[in-house]
């Protein structure tokens, strides 16, 4: 890519490392050692960037980036994504009542249903996300408010959580498990998806709760406290204030998905980078035999509306998306690659013109030094 001249000067046989102070030994002459290192004559590669050498690089970059960009863009476009806001801000939205009448104390969850239609069938695995807006999971006070030791199953920290968890550390002298603001604000809406057949019958879709958290998180970073029975292990603790179920009973359907290793919980504990974010909620696995995982048609989303966001002007969304090798739908990468590739290509052309106009002399870049 770069024109270069390998400039090996004489007496480069010396190994610089061995040529330290007073290598000459008994001859106490102060004559400096004649080593390549000390004489600043180490053999050196002296690349010289010139229009001629950079030119091909620009073209090559352009030629590589533009196809990649197009590939990315196409891939991203092929990803099907459906997004629906169910916050219930407008009076006519189905969850308006639930949103308005929210109370922490209500024992029964407010249920609302949202109907929507998928225009296109979703193939392969479909991933169901919930999205929150204007929710500062990356606020410093919030990010800090956890106790990784406790979450790792440390018994000491289970009953005496780190002070970072304040003010969600102890309630009435009993340790909160899991402690901290992040755990306390665990997203606890329940989303159920059913396919509305043309005859009106609801066909409940199987939502898989596993595989949504990082493998290392689930198996190494998060551990339940030792003990055969989770409820016993957590007996000296209380659940966070805003929770409805204790930590050992987060997933009644699967006993292995309870306690700190509950995947919904783990996903929530990985704090988002930006105030508008999405988190993986469920996976709708591809059905063997069926043409598409979610055929086009109308669907009904049943929401157990437990999570208030209006107080901080937030929004809640449900997102259905397929996934490609590059992750979820993200046109940015494709566009960026195409842009940068085109710029490189364009610059290449400009440089070529310049190079041509001002003669070829600068293209012969190998200059002996």
């Amino acid at each position: 890519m770069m024109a270069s001249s390998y400039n090996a000067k004489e007496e480069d046989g010396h190994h610089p490392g061995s040529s330290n102070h007073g290598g000459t030994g008994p001859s106490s002459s102060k004559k400096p050692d004649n080593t390549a290192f000390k004489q600043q004559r180490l053999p050196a590669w002296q690349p010289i960037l010139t229009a001629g050498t950079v030119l091909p690089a620009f073209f090559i970059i352009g030629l590589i980036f533009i196809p990649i960009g197009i590939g990315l863009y196409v891939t991203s476009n092929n990803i099907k994504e459906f997004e629906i806001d169910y916050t219930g801000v407008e009076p006519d939205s189905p969850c308006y009542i639930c949103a308005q009448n929210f109370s922490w104390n209500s024992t029964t969850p407010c249920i609302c249903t949202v109907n929507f239609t998928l225009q296109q069938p979703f193939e392969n695995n479909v991933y169901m996300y919930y999205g929150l807006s204007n929710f500062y999971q990356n606020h410093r006070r919030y990010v800090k408010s956890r106790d990784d030791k406790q979450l790792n199953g440390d018994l000491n920290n289970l009953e005496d959580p780190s002070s970072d968890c304040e003010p969600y550390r102890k309630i009435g002298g009993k340790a909160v498990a899991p402690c901290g603001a992040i755990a306390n604000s665990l997203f606890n809406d329940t989303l159920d998806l059913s396919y509305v057949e043309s005859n009106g019958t609801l066909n409940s879709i199987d939502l898989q709760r596993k595989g949504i958290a990082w493998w290392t998180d689930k198996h190494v970073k998060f551990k339940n406290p030792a003990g055969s029975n989770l409820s016993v292990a957590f007996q000296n603790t209380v659940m966070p204030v805003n929770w409805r179920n204790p930590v050992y009973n987060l997933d009644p359907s699967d006993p292995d998905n309870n306690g700190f290793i509950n995947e919904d919980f783990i996903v929530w504990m990985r704090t988002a980078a930006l105030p508008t974010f999405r988190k993986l909620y469920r996976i709708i696995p591809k059905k063997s035999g069926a043409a598409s995982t979610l055929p086009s048609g109308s669907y009904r989303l049943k929401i157990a509306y437990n999570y208030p966001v209006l107080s901080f002007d937030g929004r809640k969304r449900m997102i259905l998306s397929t996934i490609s090798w590059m992750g979820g739908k993200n046109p940015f990468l494709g566009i960026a690659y195409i842009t940068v590739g085109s710029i490189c290509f364009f610059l290449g052309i400009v440089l070529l013109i310049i190079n041509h106009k001002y003669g070829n002399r600068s293209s012969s870049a190998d200059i002996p030094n």
Partner: protein
Amino acid sequence: MLRRSLNRLLGGDERRVDNRTIYIGHQSFPVNEAFIPPKFCDNRIVSSKYTVWNFLPKNLFEQFRRIANFYFLIIFLVQVIVDTPTSPVTSGLPLFFVITVTAIKQGYEDWLRHKADREVNKSTVKVLENGEETSKESEKIKVGDIVEVTENDTFPCDLILLQSSRDDGTCFVTTASLDGESNHKTHYTVPDIERDLQSLSATIECEQPQPDLYKFNGRMHIYKNDQEPTVRSLGPENLLLKGATLKNTQKICGVAVYTGMETKMALNYQGKSQKRSVVEKSINAFLLVYLCILVSKALVCTTLKYVWQNKPGQDEPWYNEKTQKEKDTNLYLKMFTDFLSFMVLFNFIIPVSMYVTVEMQKFLGSFFITWDKDFFDPEIQEGALVNTSDLNEELGQVEYIFTDKTGTLTQNNMEFIECCIDGFQYKHRGACSELDGFCVTDGPVNKLQQKAGREREELFLRALCLCHTVQVKESTEQARSQGEDCIDQVDGLPVEDEALQPPQEERGFIASSPDEIALVKGAMRYGFTFLGLESKTMKILNRNKDVEMYELLHVLNFDPVRRRMSVIVRSRSGDTLLFCKGADSSIFPRVRQEEVERIRMHVERNATDGYRTLCVAYKHLSEEEYAQADEGLREARLALQDREEKLMAVYNQVETGMNLLGATAVEDRLQEEAAETMEALQGAGMKVWVLTGDKMETAKSTCYACGLFQKRTELLELTVRTLEDGGRKREDRLHELLSEYHKKAVQDAPPVKAGGSRGRFFGKQDYGFIIDGPSLSIVLSSSSESNSNLYKNLFLQICQNCTAVLCCRMAPLQKAQIVKMVKNCKGSPITLSIGDGANDVSMILEAHVGIGIKGKEGRQAVRNSDYAIPKLKHLKKLLLAHGHLYYVRIAHLVQYFFYKNLCFILPQFLYQFFCGYSQQPLYDAAYLTMYNICFTSMPILAYSLFEQHICIEFLLKNANLYSEVAKNAMLRWELFLYWTLLGVFHGLVFFFGVRFLFGNPALQDNGQVFGNWSYGTIVFTVLVFTVTLKLALDTRHWTWINHFVIWGSLAFYVFFSFFWGGIIWPFQKHQRLYFVFANMLSSVSAWLVIILLILLSLLPEILLVVLRKPRGPYARKKKMVQSSEGGLQSPRSPVRPLLMRTFSDESSTVI
């Protein structure tokens, strides 16, 4: 020296009234009614700074006095006290590291000093106490103790010599460890001292300790059984300095006068004042800018935070409640702590590591100067010496060079060329040998009468043999006998070739000035050999092989003001003669005028030929005259105060009415490659000023020989001669001349310049300016203040438009004045002084960079210099190659450091807009800490040590490349702005690139999402790679070290990230980065975005490099290489002889 002369100038406080009185052997006297034992300090030398107990507090205090360290300490304390986003470790660890390393280094140095002190203090010395010899530890010596020192021992304290084992009451010492002069110096016992020191009762009255090594005034009162005490004067010749070594003398006894920290050596021990380089000033300025950026960032964030929090629901949503403590805190206090927190969060923008790296670069970089074998001089078996590494880069910024002439431009290797006796020229030629060794070559005018009278001739040669302070070298008795053998041998040989004979060479002469040796050797060639000085008797071997004896009565020492020296001797026949030699200007007014004219012609011709001329005169002293002179001299020498002035008066009085005998011409050869060096330096855009004490003609011819003045150079002369030309008042004439020259050199010059650059080669007239000492002092200290300023300005402006300036007849202090004047003039140019002698010390200390030449005039210049080189020719490589490279290296280092920390911190700043201004750090603490210490520090250090953007040979060949970095070119504000904008651009690219990617955080192919730490890690990865690759792009010289360090630190970053994220660290509260890095790498999108952003960031840089190329140095480099391949290199003989003989006629001065 300088300080003292300054003091004198300022009418200083020299007249100290307090003397100290010392009782020799601690005896009390009946004469003095009360014996009060005076309090003097003991003889303990303490050069160490710390003790075990005070090391920690004192060292810490010293270190935190540095503004940068203090800043980091404050940041650290804020982190400890206030609840800040990053743990105190992140800034505490680097600070601790820096402080510890510095403390260890200083501690070690101090330990070495302790060791050296102990060695000195605990060594045993013999002290005579009550007639017995006792051994004492050196530190227990008290003032007044009589100390015995044997041969080759160093003196434990400053002693007054009382007794010597030599018969003539002298002893020889060498002061090599004090001032580097390795010749043997003779010191004398105090006259009239009894042999039995036990019965000696005397007091010494002397001045309080002062650091001048060559000055001592004292008086000894000797009491002899109720007689009136005899008083003897004491001078520096009686004082043996601590640190000097006794030579050639079996033992001596002396009384301690100054001990311990009051010895002259200890008083001279103080370090030099620190010089600061331009780069350092630039760093400080940039630092200020960054500090402002930092503060404004923190202010902006704090303000926005409170604006943002004012919106309902934002400050404390239900999911993120404040702790009780936070709620209770006062709003303003909270604002203040928030501000501090932001400061802490962004403090990495000013990195501790920059100071460490800069220091390391300077320290390690200076080794390349010491290691350079091109600086090695086989003659003295030494290479270059670096006394301070702080100024490496300043070597690349020099605009004015002030050089001494003798010993610097010339070799100070004197050779007797010819003499002129009574107006007849005698020239010695090695080839032709007439009977008596003379070869008379003179014009046809003198053909008939070829020689002066034989009597005059011999008198002249005797004068040469007697009028000097040369010693004959005699290291041991054996050598002396050998020496005698030699003389015997010589007897049988033709005289004129003696000088060339090896045995004769061996019996060398030692003198403080090489001129004297040359003269003595010259006389030897003509048949008069100086045999030596023994107990005040000078022996010379005359042409008839007879030994003549002269009693040396007085030596009227040489001094630069009088510019002459004399001896008074008494011959066997009882005649008292005064021989005097000195500069023509100081001799001519003191001799009979009719003799002058004949000789003046020769002297002037010799001077224009570039020889150093001395005139020799003599005078018969009658008995009365001598008695008067003798008394005057003794009196003056006894004076405790104003001794020098009084001596001077007597000298002037004695040295009058003399008869002029003749003149000598001594050639001082040009240094090797002096002309080439000067040409290169001028080609590099430096202005060379020659400051010399020598006379104008000699100096001018040296300038011609060095190529400083060219044939076509028009000389503007401002000397006593031209000033007195008009016959008017000097000052009026000065004004007139100055304005005339100014018109010529300054006002008329610009149009030519504007006419186009080629005018430089054809049209523009070169000017050379010559000024002498007296004229300069008129310029500098004119009668009225306004005039003085006007003259100074005119003078400076003229000088700035001249290619070379010659200042002759300068006193050392005037040299410093000139340097200071130029240093402080508009634009404050960087000055460099180079010299070899003690008279150059003042200007070496004054200039930005002081360079000492390891010459023949002792080591004082070397000791006071910043860099010392063996020869003048080494200056070229030192400046053009080393200086240039160091400057480029450190300038790049500084810019790069600021840049890399700006784009490091900018994303963190931008992230605040997305996290509710909560001071949430974007990067993990480990990354914050390690970024500057490990990930990005080594490549830039390697760069700043090994970079050669243009190879050394090429730099040396093309001096004009030097001017490309002149005036701090690489640290200008435009460039700083460019780097800052680059940093901002990179920061924006990093942050927003990743920000857009995180529009959908589901980046893994299994649908899982990334969180904030992944975000930070991606940004950080892009950052580390971009910043390192940016440096790689700038690197023009890839040695294996650069490869190793650049790729190594990237690999290390990856390795470290895996390692850091691969383990649940038990000591960590948060496992934030657990598997974040590995997960990031498992995402194709992350890879793609990293590659894209790195490329996008570097794209403009590559483009700029390419576009800049045609105008950059490389294009020219190529052209020049091509042209030089064509063999256009001017064929210059490596050794240029003195050329000015051809120039001397053409060098027409203006007047």
